[in-house]
């Protein structure tokens, strides 16, 4: 019984696993859905309160700036951190049955995506509300701004691609090399500061700002800021490099995962 990629069974399986992830989360906590929004809000308040004294970011609202970066970042970091050790955590399933292994990883990514989308919608409402209250936008201006916000959809697509790529890569590697998980746990907080979430690249020395584009999350978060808050992009050409890096990483992750997946049972 072989599984084929992207056939009907595959989609049904990934869908069922995603539903399981979402349902299981909200059966544990009554206020589950509230936490989607509450978690980044608390983060935003704490970081915002401290950093506004250190980071002279030129934005209208530093808290909104933070929140716009934190939502995609949280999606990325939660998904990757949960997916890295997932093959050993789900060993009971892997050792006993034959199913598309990538569905475990994809389920985590898609369920987190679902949560992020809810929080994202709420953020957009806040953003539009902010325009009405503080800037007294007219109806046409509001429509223009709303249309502009639609550009976040392809960005979320890019974010999902990048997250899936890293998740597949680390999940596959961690089966054979168990210290990959420790590495990811250690690197993630540093990665956060190597991404312009609490600061803008314009604040950094010139050479340093360009160097950070080696991190594909940099260009992505910059574009989020650019679309939502009309922040200037530090170096648009290097953003294209990040798109390229993300696609390469995605295919690398897929390739390694597909190559290793039939042998996961031997190692977990």
């Amino acid at each position, binding site marked *: *019984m*072989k*599984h084929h990629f992207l056939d*009907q*069974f595959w989609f*049904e*399986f990934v869908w*069922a*696993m995603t*539903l*399981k992830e979402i*349902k*299981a989360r909200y*059966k*544990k906590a009554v206020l589950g859905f509230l936490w989607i929004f509450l978690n980044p809000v608390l983060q935003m308040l704490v970081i915002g309160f401290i950093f506004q004294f250190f980071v002279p970011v030129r934005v209208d609202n530093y808290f909104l700036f933070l929140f716009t970066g934190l939502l995609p970042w949280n999606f990325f970091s939660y998904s990757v951190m949960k997916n890295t050790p997932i093959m050993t955590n789900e060993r*009971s*399933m*892997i*050792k*006993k*049955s*034959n*199913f598309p292994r990538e569905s475990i990883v994809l389920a985590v990514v898609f369920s987190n995506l679902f949560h992020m989308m809810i929080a994202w919608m709420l953020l957009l409402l806040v953003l539009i509300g902010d325009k009405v209250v503080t800037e007294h936008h007219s109806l046409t201006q509001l429509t223009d701004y709303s249309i502009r916000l639609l550009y976040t959809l392809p960005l979320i697509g890019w974010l999902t691609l990048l997250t899936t790529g890293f998740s597949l890569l680390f999940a596959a*590697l961690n089966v*054979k*090399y*168990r*210290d*990959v998980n420790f*590495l990811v746990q250690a690197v993630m907080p540093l990665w956060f500061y190597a991404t312009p979430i609490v600061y803008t690249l314009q604040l950094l020395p010139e050479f340093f700002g360009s160097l950070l584009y080696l991190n594909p999350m940099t260009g992505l978060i910059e574009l989020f800021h650019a679309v939502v808050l009309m922040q200037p992009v530090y170096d648009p050409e290097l953003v294209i490099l990040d798109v390229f890096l993300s696609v390469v990483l995605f295919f690398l992750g897929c390739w390694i995962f597909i190559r290793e997946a*039939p*042998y*996961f*049972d*031997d*190692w977990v």
Partner: protein
Amino acid sequence: MPKQQPKKRTIRKKSQKTVSKPRTELIGPLAVSLRSVKKRYTLHHEKPTFVEKFFGQTYNEQFMAIDGIDLSIPKGQKVAIIGRNGSGKTTLLKIICGVTKQSQGDVRVNGRVVSLIDLEAGFHPELTGYENIALNGLLVGMSRSEIKERTPQIIEFAGIGSFIDAPLFTYSEGMKLRLGFSVAVHADPDILVLDEMIATGDANFQKKCFNRIEEFFHQNKTIITVSHVMSFIEPHYQRFVWLEKGKVKLDGGKEVVAAYRKTWK
């Protein structure tokens, strides 16, 4: 099994001729076909790490669990794989089920394989019985429409009652076992993989299980089992494959069991 009788005889004749030799001739459509299959495991003494590999301190101890097996199982045949612990029985089943992949050789499996070995692998304690049926059904290879159609039968067979709406952590061990077994047997397998011990729930349900498995024996299902308990398997199977150190030592009818028994003390 009167209906099976003529077919049985022809198979046995052929299997006697080819005792311990690779079975190359085709007997009808094949359910499982293995060609010089090998499975190599790398032995770890500790968790494998990247740092180790980086500093070149890897252990290269290898172990051949399956060392060149040729095996063709025609559709509808009932095969028991016998042998000591560590002879490669479980690895062979894992390869047939697709849980792991062979290191070398060619494996072909036609039809849906359902294993009645561990039935609770895909269960999630926080989800209800219904939700777990949906997930475990997919795990044993059913499509969503098949699961939808068979859910009432699955619940009925498992005898879960009103607990079906409750999360799985409220179930007793017996109820979980029953639900798992019920999902698996409703998957309509072409190839059924059995363990020697099917201890499921109370005496009443055990009887139900045996009846169900008996039904599978009467239908034209391919059944593969691993076993130590000879008295249980002997009357039900036509063919016995004796594995030793990852190789087929003997392959044939009941005489294989007799030969295997002689090695016991």
